[in-house]
Structure formats: C-alpha cells, structure tokens
C-alpha cells in the first residue's frame, strides 16, 4: 500500500545539526560547479560509516536554465579504498531519509551508497515528473556522473563507476529506467514497481483490445496523484501513510508516537499519517515501532523544509508537472486514457526502453499488489531476460496492498544480488523464481507464516503446465447500475492488509445480486495450486450505447460451505469493445496469483459490472455474459518446491539445554557428609576445655548398654573433650561404624558418632557425637527432656534426615534414605501420619500395599487388635480422636511385625488402661526376640516398660545401660529436710560439696540431693548432723527429675 518503502532507521540523531550543515552545503553548491559536498561525520553509527550530505544543483530539464536542487547523502565505509556504488531510491511520498538504515547497512558491508530525495520530495525542489526521462532519470545520470569522479568508488572505466540501483515502487521504476538510459549502471533490483504505467493505471485484461481501451484504476490513481498535491491533508489519505513527508504537507506534527503499528500484521495505515515517513501495512511490530520513531523526526524535518519545496507546485494544486496533472484530470473525469496521455505515461515506463535494459536484474514484486500487479513483473522479466541479462523473479508476500513486506529477506536478497554482480563475489543469488506462500497465521504472534517455493526457471504467467477446469452456468445478464454504484468490492487500496484475510478464509469481497455473473466449477477432487494467470474465454454482449462492456473478472475460492474468498483481493478489469450486436468472444486474463484451491473447494469465475477501485461507465446497461467453452485454463507450476516451514533453531535447542541442565542438577548437589561436623566453625557450647579434665580422647563417648554403668563414663562424655577436635580424628570408627565391628546382623541398632545440626542453627547441635548400641530382645527407653535430640535421632534412624557425621547401622546395614533394611523397622515417630479422607482400615491397607510386600506378611489382625478401634476402623481418620490416631499409628508401625520397633512417646494421649495395655504389648513384643525402642521424657514411663535406658540431653548421650543400673545405681541421695530454710540448704550444700568423698550437692525441694564419691551414708549423716541439718530421712534418689538433675550435672 505504500509507494515508499519502509527502511529501518538505524543511524539517526543530531538531525538538527546536520540540517544546518546541509544548509551551508546548499549555499556552497550554488557557488560551485553544481556539485559540492561537505563531509559530515556521523559518529553515532555502530560501525564506522562515513556520511556526506550535499545538495546538488541540476538543470530542470537538459539544457534548461531553471535548476532544481537535489538533496543527497553519500555513505561510505570507513577506512578508505574503492567500493562498488549503490544508488538507493526511495518510494513515492518518501525521501532519502527512508533509505538511511539500508544505506548504512550496505555501507558497512563495503558499498558506497548514494541516497537522494527525488524531485518534489524531501528537501529536493522541483515538480514531480513521475520518473520522466528528462527529469528524474537525467538526475540519476548526473548522480552516476558524480560517482564517476569519486576516488572511493570502483571505476570500470573513465567516468564509469561500478554502480547498482535499487528501490521500491517509485524507486524501482527509476532503477529500471536508469538502467535503460544509462549504460554505466551494472545491476539493478527493482521492487514492487511498474513496467508499463499505462497498463498499470488503465489495465485491460481482454486480449486483442485497443491500447487505449483500458479501465481507469481510479482509486489508486487518485491516491497517487492527490498525494503529490499541495494542500492535501496528508493524514486523510488512507493509502499512502507518510505522505505528509512530502514537503508541501507540513502537517508532520502529528507526533512522533503516531507511528507505532499494532505489530500484528494489521494495517499500518495509521502509522505514518501526518508524519514524515512512509510506513507499512503489515510491517511487523518492532519494525513498525521503529518506523514510528523515525516518523516523528522526519515529520519535523518536513516542516522545516516545507517552505522550500512549496514554491514548486504547478498551478491548480497539483505538484506534478503540468502535463501529468492534465493527464490525471482528464482521466479522472472521463475514465478513459487518450493517446496523448498514454504516450506521456509510456515515457515514464521502463517498457519504453525495455530492449536497452541488459543488466542483471532482480525483480521483486508483491503478491498483494493491485496497483502494480505481478503481470508488470512478468513483462519486466520476459523483456530483460530476452535481452540476455540474468533475471531472478521473486514474488514476495507484500506489495502496495500490504501484507508482510518481508523487508529483511528482500533486503538481504538484494544485497546478495549486488554482492554477485557488483563485487563479483561467488555467492548464490538464489532461485530464478521464488514465491512466498503464506501458510497461515501464527495466532500467537499474529504474523503470517511464510514459506518460500522455488523453481530453477521463471515459468511466466502460463505456468509450466495447464489444467482445464470445467465451469457450469448458463448465460447470465449482468446489470451495470446507473452511476456505477453501488460498486462491487474486491480490494480496497490502503486497506490492503485486509487482503491477508483471504489466506485465513475470510473475504471482504462484495458483489451485488444482478450485477454479476458467476460460473462455478465442480468441487475439486484434489488440491489445485494456481501459479500464474488463469484464462477464460467469455462471450459478452452489451446493450450500452457505445457497445462496450466493462467487466471485472475474478476467481473466487469457494469452500464446501459456500463461503468464498478472493485470493489476494485481486480483480482483472476488462473492456470489451464492439459488443453491441450479438456480442463478442474474448479471452480474459485473470489476476495473477499463487493460490492453492483445496480439495473439495470450487473455483468460481465472477464477472461483475462494477468495482470500487475502478472507473466503470455511469450509463446503465445490461450485459449478457456466457462462459464460452465453459472452461478455465489454469496455469500450474508443479516444479515449484515449497520449503518446509523453517522452525526456529531454539525449538530444538531449548529442550536439549533443559536436559543438560537437568543432568547437571541431578549429578551435582548430592549432599556430602560434612567433615566439619565436629565444629571447626562452631565450637560446642562448652568450648575450650572448660571442664577438660580428660583429654585422652580415646573414648568415643559410646555406651554399651549391656555392660558398664554410666558412672565410669560420665567424665568421658564427649562434650568435655576439647572442642574443635574432629570426631573423625578422635574416633576413627565414627564415620563407619561397621569398620569397628564387622557388620553384625544380630545387632538391631548401633549408633556411632552421630551428629546433626539443622540448617540455620550452625552453632547448635541437635545431636552430637551420639553413640550407643541396642541388642536383640531389649526394650530400650530413650530418655531425655524436650529438645534432647531424641526425635532427631529417630528420624535419622528412619533415614528421613541425613546425619552430618557418624552412622547408624540396623542389623548390620548402614542406614541411609530408603535403605532396604528399613523394611525391618517399624516406626511411630512424632505422631500419626494418615490420609484423613480414608478410613483407618484403608489407611493400614494402603500403607501395607505401599511397602510392596506380600499382603499375608502384614499380620493385620494382630495390629488391629492393638489398635482396638472397633467400628471406628471404618470411619474416615479425620473423625478420630488423638488417642485413636495414636493407636492406629502404633498398629501401623507393628504391621508385618518388624524386627525393630521404634515408638516415640507411645503413651501420649492414651488413657490409663490403654497405657497399661500398651506397656504389656511392648513387653510381649520384645519377648518374642524382637527389639523395641521407646522414647519418652518421663522416667516413670520408661522405668516400667523398658529393660535398658539411654539418657540424652542437648543432643548428647548422658548415660546408657540397664534401667536398674541407671536408676538404682544412682549415686545420688536425697536428704529430706523439710524444716530447713532455703538459705540454710544452700549453705549446707556448699559445705557438703567441699567435703572429700562428695562429688556434688544441690539444694532441692524440701531437702538436698547429694552425690557421694567415696563417702558412705553414715559419714554423710554425721556430716549433716554436724551441720545442724534437720534430717528427716535419707534415701536413694529415684525420681526422674532428680535423676536427670544428677545425670546432666544438676543444671536442668
């Protein structure tokens, strides 16, 4: 939809300064030989590109005294040397600034690039001559002259620079024309442009009709000409965004932000409006945004320059040359081209010099282009190829109607073309024929998915083979409405992006009943891809006064449900002359498309009397239309190979990276048994040998429950060893308990050197250097106050937490997470853990099934007996009381009658009869040769059910041994003296503690606790009497709390 191509905007900035400099250059230019330049360093380009701005003064026409000033920029790679030159021409309504991005890119890649604003655009003066040979083309010849004198441009001969020309639309035509008029041009790459302007503006698709019988393309032509006119509010033009950039506009102040396109392939119509630069329908998001930024700046510069150019317009507000303005007015009124008009337009057509274009030509033409359709490119390609020059044809997805302009790809291909023919590099110039096929829309990005289909040879519009498709439908009457209104709608210039919808199966096309004839094919049995221009012979008769019939032919794609779409919204106008009496049969060339008609779809030929975009007779008339021969000749190119959709590389790379990351995650991060568990960083609470009476360190602090009582070991308790010693150093066996004693399967549990600190409490051990051993048949009580480390020890025993140091073996097997030997351990630790939504029975059942062991081994009945839940067993666990859960959990621990049963506070929440029952259960269980470990903080509890005891405090082992030894073997005596006052007791305790044979004495409630170490009871009594203590009784101290006091040093 835009005559001016969008160019990326990469090297901008300091526009104002440059403008001032440019003004000075202009003055200098007038003084000099017509050509002058001043170097302006552009220092904001990433790679150094040298840019020179200059106005060049040129005669208005050769020999004329009038001059025009052409605004140019010359980009050269930094670093000197000679480079091939490229002339970059801008599109209609644009200026040289549109080309800055591409120019910079090319210069960076080793080209000397000259951009210029054509006459009447940008800051160049003069009237628009529509690429007239004596005006715009002559200007280009002078630019080539100028390049021919440059020492930084490769010269093929005297005054013969090596130069290529490229540009889109207006710039494309100048490329072709320049190559026709100037032999020094070496390669061209015209894009979306015209070959024959009369045919483009007055198309005639009925073969064999007179040249001046074409149908006026009024909407496009109107847009074309009015945007070159002064006073046209540029923002009002839907089709040519950015036309405000034409100097006369001066309305560029619409604001820099106006240019942000939606970025979803929608029309970018709004993007350039009122600003200075061309923008594109369907340009992708980032692109549209950058264009928008550019638009603001250009809009500003347009205003500045507006005064200069506004001087030029021809009378009547038309900024074209007077002759062109006259042609337009005449055609707009009559809808016909007179021979003079055709002659004038021919002069601006490359076709007029077709036989002289003999340079390698890359032709890029848009499939969404109702202004310069693909048949223009076809004529171009055939003519130039017949001259013997290399030609490649590229049907891009863009065009003046919009769609994805594929700017990056096209720019890349153009550069490759010049690399080959200007730099003579051996690079692949790409296929001789390429079609961009839109697969569909990526709904996430909103972009059409493009695929390239290529062939080694350009097939032309008749394809490499033809398929005949039968059409049905008898002769039909088509009424041309008076005034040509309402018109059928095929494409609307400027809303061309909507033609994208045709690839989505949507169509905006509109035909009015009675005003068109339709001929349908049968549903296609297999897909049919049309590549080229289908043809059909129709018989047309007209009752119009002049005997003419103007019709608009199009081929719809009709889906099985009857919905019809018009491929690329293209229509072929035709005027059948002399169809008055009886009519005539003509061959109609239908629009050139590349379109797949799916299997099951039908092709529908429609001939409509009107079309919105074209001028049709205003006198009402009836046409009689019949499809002569009833067949559509459809060109196909079976050799076109569609490349598979290119999948972004990251689609495959990302999962591989993820796999690598996953592997790295799994291979690292295994927790190592930290060697510093002994606390190099964190000395124990009793650091620095405060009580360090024993430093031989050979005793691991362990305890064998079978033997020695605790007395002799107390002094060796690990905390009294010098802190900082690594337990591993102290005790070679601590890391591998099995190393000290060969794995002994008969030992249900052996713990050695066990240490654990929780994360976040670096200076506090939950368990520290714990060692003890349990023999078969024992009921071990694990005794200690809250926080003593009992539960942590049990969790390590179950493999739930990993010790920092030390080890646990169960039946000779070291314990780690999920160690199989745990299947011989039943545990109830820290409360029940059931699925609350399931019944007690289901919980037990599923738990046992989760162990994967045979159902028969579960001994469920015995376990249920212990649980004693009765009917509650079939209720959901969430309804249970705490005691019920407790019993169910103990029952679960006993499932399968494990060899080692661990019960943590088993009597919590039980009532006294249940407690008693539980004790007997535990006793019976162990009696069978199994081993039970019961933890509690109540000595009275363990006293009654256990055979052995391990006493812990603050993570350390305090004592271990048979219950009787620990309790009965206590060296503590309780001296009951209720009559004594507290100060007296304290004083007495202090004095007693000083005595030889007494290791300690503390005041207690109603008395004293005294620990003897050699002194007998009689001796103690004597001392007490001596100290006037009112002794009532003296006895073994057996209460739990006091035993604790004793064991843990009286500090609890």
């Amino acid at each position, binding site marked *: 939809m835009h005559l001016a191509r969008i160019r990326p905007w990469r090297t901008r900035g300091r526009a104002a300064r440059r403008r001032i400099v440019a003004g000075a250059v202009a003055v200098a230019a007038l003084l000099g030989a017509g050509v002058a330049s001043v170097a302006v360093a552009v220092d904001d380009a990433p790679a150094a590109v040298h840019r020179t701005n200059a106005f060049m003064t040129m005669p208005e026409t050769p020999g004329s005294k009038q001059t025009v000033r052409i605004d140019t920029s010359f980009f050269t790679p930094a670093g000197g040397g000679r480079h091939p030159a490229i002339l970059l021409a801008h599109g209609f309504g644009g200026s040289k600034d549109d080309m800055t991005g591409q120019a910079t890119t090319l210069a960076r890649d080793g080209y000397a690039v000259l951009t210029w604003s054509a006459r009447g655009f940008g800051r160049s003066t003069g009237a628009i001559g529509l690429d007239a040979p004596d005006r715009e083309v002559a200007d280009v010849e002078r630019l080539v002259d100028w390049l021919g004198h440059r020492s930084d441009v490769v010269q093929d001969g005297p005054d013969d620079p090596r130069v290529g020309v490229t540009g889109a639309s207006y710039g494309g035509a100048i490329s072709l024309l320049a190559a026709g008029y100037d032999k020094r041009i070496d390669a061209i790459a015209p894009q979306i442009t015209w070959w024959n302007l009369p045919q483009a503006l007055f198309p005639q698709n009925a073969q064999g009709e007179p040249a001046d019988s074409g149908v006026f393309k009024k909407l496009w032509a109107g847009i074309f000409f009015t945007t070159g006119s002064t006073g046209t509010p540029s923002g009002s033009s839907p089709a040519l965004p950015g036309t405000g950039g034409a100097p006369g506009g001066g309305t560029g102040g619409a604001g820099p932000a106006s240019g942000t396109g939606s970025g979803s392939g929608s029309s970018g119509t709004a993007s350039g409006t009122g600003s200075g630069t061309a923008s594109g329908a369907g340009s992708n998001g980032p692109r549209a945004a950058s264009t928008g930024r550019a638009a603001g700046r250009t809009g500003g510069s347009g205003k500045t320059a507006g005064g200069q150019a506004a001087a030029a317009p021809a009378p009547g507000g038309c900024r074209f040359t007077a002759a062109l303005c006259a042609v337009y007015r005449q055609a707009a009124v009559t809808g016909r081209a007179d021979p003079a008009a055709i002659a004038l337009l021919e002069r601006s057509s490359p076709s007029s010099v077709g036989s002289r274009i003999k340079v390698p030509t890359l032709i890029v033409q848009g499939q969404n282009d109702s202004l310069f359709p693909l048949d223009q490119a076809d004529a171009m390609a055939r003519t130039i190829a017949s001259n013997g020059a290399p030609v490649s044809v590229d049907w891009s997805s863009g065009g003046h109607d919009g769609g994805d302009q594929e700017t990056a790809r096209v720019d890349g291909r153009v550069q490759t073309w010049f690399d080959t023919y200007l730099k003579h590099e051996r690079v692949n110039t790409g296929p001789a024929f390429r079609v961009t096929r839109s697969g569909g829309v990526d709904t996430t990005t909103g972009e059409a998915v493009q695929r390239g289909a290529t062939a080694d040879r350009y097939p032309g519009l008749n394809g490499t083979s033809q398929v005949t498709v039968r059409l049905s439908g008898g002769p039909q009457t088509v009424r041309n409405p008076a005034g040509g209104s309402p018109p059928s709608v095929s494409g609307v210039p400027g809303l061309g992006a909507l033609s994208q919808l045709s690839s989505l*199966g949507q169509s905006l096309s509109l035909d009015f009943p009675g005003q068109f004839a339709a001929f349908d094919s049968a549903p296609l049995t297999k897909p049919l891809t049309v590549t080229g221009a289908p043809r059909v012979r129709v018989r047309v008769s007209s009752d119009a006064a002049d005997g003419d019939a103007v019709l608009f032919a199009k081929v719809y794609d009709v*889906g099985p449900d009857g919905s019809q779409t018009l491929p690329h919204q293209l229509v072929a106008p035709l005027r059948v002359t002399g169809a008055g009496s009886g009519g005539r049969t003509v061959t109609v060339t239908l629009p050139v498309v590349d379109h797949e008609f799916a299997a099951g779809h039908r092709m529908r030929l429609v001939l409509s009397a009107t079309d919105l975009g074209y001028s049709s007779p205003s006198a009402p008339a009836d046409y009689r239309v019949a499809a002569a021969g009833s067949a559509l000749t459809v060109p196909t190119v079976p050799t076109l190979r569609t490349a598979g959709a290119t*999948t972004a590389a990251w689609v495959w790379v990302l999962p591989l990276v993820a796999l690598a990351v996953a592997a790295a995650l799994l291979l690292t991060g295994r927790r190592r048994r930290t060697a510093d568990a002994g606390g190099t960083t964190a000395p124990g609470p009793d650091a620095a040998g405060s009580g360090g009476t024993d430093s031989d360190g050979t005793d691991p602090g362990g305890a064998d429950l079978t033997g020695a009582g605790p007395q002799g070991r107390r002094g060796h308790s690990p905390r009294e060893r010098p802190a900082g010693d690594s337990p591993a150093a102290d005790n070679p066996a601590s890391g591998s308990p099995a190393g000290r004693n060969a794995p002994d399967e008969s030992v249900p549990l052996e713990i050695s050197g066990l240490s654990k600190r929780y994360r976040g409490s670096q200076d506090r051990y939950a368990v520290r250097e714990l060692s003890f051993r349990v023999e078969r048949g024992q009921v071990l009580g694990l005794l200690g106050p809250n926080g003593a480390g009992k539960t942590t020890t049990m969790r390590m025993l179950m493999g739930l937490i990993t010790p920092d140091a030390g080890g646990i073996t169960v039946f000779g097997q070291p314990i780690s997470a999920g160690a199989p030997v745990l299947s011989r351990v039943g545990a109830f630790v820290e409360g029940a853990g059931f699925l609350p939504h399931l019944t007690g029975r289901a919980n037990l059942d599923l*738990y046992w099934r989760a162990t994967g062991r045979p159902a028969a081994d579960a001994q469920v009945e015995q376990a249920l007996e212990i649980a004693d839940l009765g009917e509650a067993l079939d209720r959901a666990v969430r309804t249970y009381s705490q005691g019920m859960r407790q019993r169910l959990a103990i029952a679960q621990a006993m499932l399968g009658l494990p060899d080692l049963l661990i019960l943590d506070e088993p009597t919590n929440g039980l009532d006294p009869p249940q407690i008693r029952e539980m004790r007997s259960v535990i006793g019976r269980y162990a009696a069978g040769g199994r081993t039970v470990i019961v933890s509690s903080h109540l000595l009275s509890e363990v006293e009654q059910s256990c055979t052995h005891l391990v006493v812990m405090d603050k993570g350390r082992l305090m004592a271990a041994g048979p219950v009787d030894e620990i309790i009965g073997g206590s060296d503590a005596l309780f001296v009951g003296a209720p009559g004594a006052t507290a100060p007296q007791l304290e004083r007495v305790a202090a004095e007693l503690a000083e005595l030889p044979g007494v290791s300690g004495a503390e005041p207690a409630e109603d008395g004293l606790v005294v620990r003897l170490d050699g002194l007998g009871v009689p001796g103690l009594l004597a001392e007490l009497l001596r100290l006037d203590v009112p002794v009532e009784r003296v006895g073994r101290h057996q209460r739990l709390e006091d035993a604790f006091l004793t064991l843990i040093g009286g500090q609890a």
Partner: protein
Amino acid sequence: MSEQGDGTPGAGLPGTGATAVRGGTAHAGDAAGAAGYHARRTLPLRVEAVRQLRRRRTLVAFAVVVALPIVVWAAFAIGGRPRDRGDVPTLVDVATSSGLNFALAVVFVSSGFLLTLPVALFFGDTVASEAGWSSLRYLLAAPVPRARLLVSKAVVAFVFSALAVLALPAVALAVGTAAYGWGGLDLPTGGSLPAGSAAARFAVIVVYVFVSQLAVAGLAFWLSTVTDAPLGAVGGAVGAAILSNILDAITALGPVRQVLPTHWQFAWADLLQPGAEWSGMLKGTSVAVSFAIVFLALAFRRFRTKDIVS
C-alpha cells in the same frame, strides 16, 4: 524364597550396593530388607492412584471440568445463541454451530486459566499434602525410595491431570454434539472444516492444551517438594502462571516473551484456519517440555537429600 533375594540388590539406592551381600538369615526380597521387600515394588501406581483418587479435591477438580461444559451449554440455552457483535468473530460466536464448535469454545474459555488449576493441583498437592499429613515420613520409612516415591507421584499426577484436561473437551464434545449435532467445524475466521479433519485437529488441540500446561505442572511439582503446605505449592504454580501471563502482556519485553511458559498457550488456534500451522505449537511444546524437565530435575535434586522434618 532365597533366589528371590539374590537377583535384587537395592537397585538404584545409594548406599545399598556395598551391603548387598548377605549371608545367614534367610530374608527374601531386597538384600538386607524384610521378607518380600523389593524397592521397585514399593508404592505401586495403583496404590498411589487410589490414595489420591478418593480425595475430595480430586473429585471436586473432576466435577468442575465435567460440569463446565454443561454450564456453558445451559448458558447458551438460557441466554440464546451468541450474537455476532460485528467485530472479529471469536470461537464463542460460532459455538453453537456444531458439537465440535461447542467443544472448542469450551476449550477456549477454559484453557487460559481453568485448566491450569487441576494441573497445578494434582502436581502441587501430591507431595506437600503427604508432608502436611505426616504420612510422608511413614512412606519413606516403609521404605519407599525417594526417587521412586517421586516417580510414582509424578506419574499419577500426570495421569490425573491428563484425565482432567481431556475430560473437559470430551464432555464438551458429548454435550455439544447432543445439543447442536455432529458436523463440520465453522472457523471463526470464516470457512469451515469437514467433521473428519476437524475432529482430528480437535484431538491435537486437546493434547496440546495439556502439553502446554506441563511447565506449570513441573513448577508445581518442584514446589511440592519444597514446601509442606499444599496450598503454597498449588498457589505458587498458579501465581507463576498469572505472572507469566502478565509479563506476556508487556510487549516491550520483545522476544523474551517467547520463552514465557504461557506465551504459547493459545497456539492451538493455529489449527483453526484452513491451512494448519504448526510452528507455534512446536515452540509452545518446546518451552513447556523444557520447563517441565528442569523443574522435574529440581524436584528430584531437592527431594533426594531433603531432611524430612514434617
């Protein structure tokens, strides 16, 4: 019995290899284990499925996905057919054209967020709720090897999620076909597809909708191993999905958005045009699977050494 034990060392269990040799006592099953114990027989999928299936939230999740199509149908029945509002038609506008159209409309309205919920629920809840109930420690002490526990739970969560995500379109298709008849698919952009190929595409769409949720699934599963609060894991995953949606709406992020887990969640709409496009769904699958792999690895890495203190 004994030959059973010979061939089954504690496969894959760290630390058991060295102790596999046993003599004397005749314990069948894994070396050193109790009779009949085999690590690889623990927590069979069927058991885990039963454990999860009877949960109320499982049943509620399934009830919601089954009920939604009926609710939508009722809405159409009461409110009348969707009216063309003149702008770009949506799937909902053509929902009553056929059973397939109805099913697609239901998938469309639910795939953005609703279907994320059961997936996040099944994956996020599975380990964390066991931790919350304290049953996790008994499973691990049974002992169910940690990797095996995660595998069982992940597979069951996967199956449940898949069933939930598949149930919704299946029910919608049944309801829609009953209400509007079996027929071709009217495309929102115009045109239509014959019933046969539309049904095939619908199947692909349903699978893709599930696959695109895998990133959330992976995140939820990982969070489930990190926290003991099931709601934290589920909510965290859903929150991440919401955050991803918000970030995805910020176009200024540019190409970064392409690797957001939710960026491609509607890429299945690429199939709702005459010429199906696959690149978007490929990208979405790539992103989702990649996230899932990494999160799964994080879950295993986290869980294998985690101190179970719940």
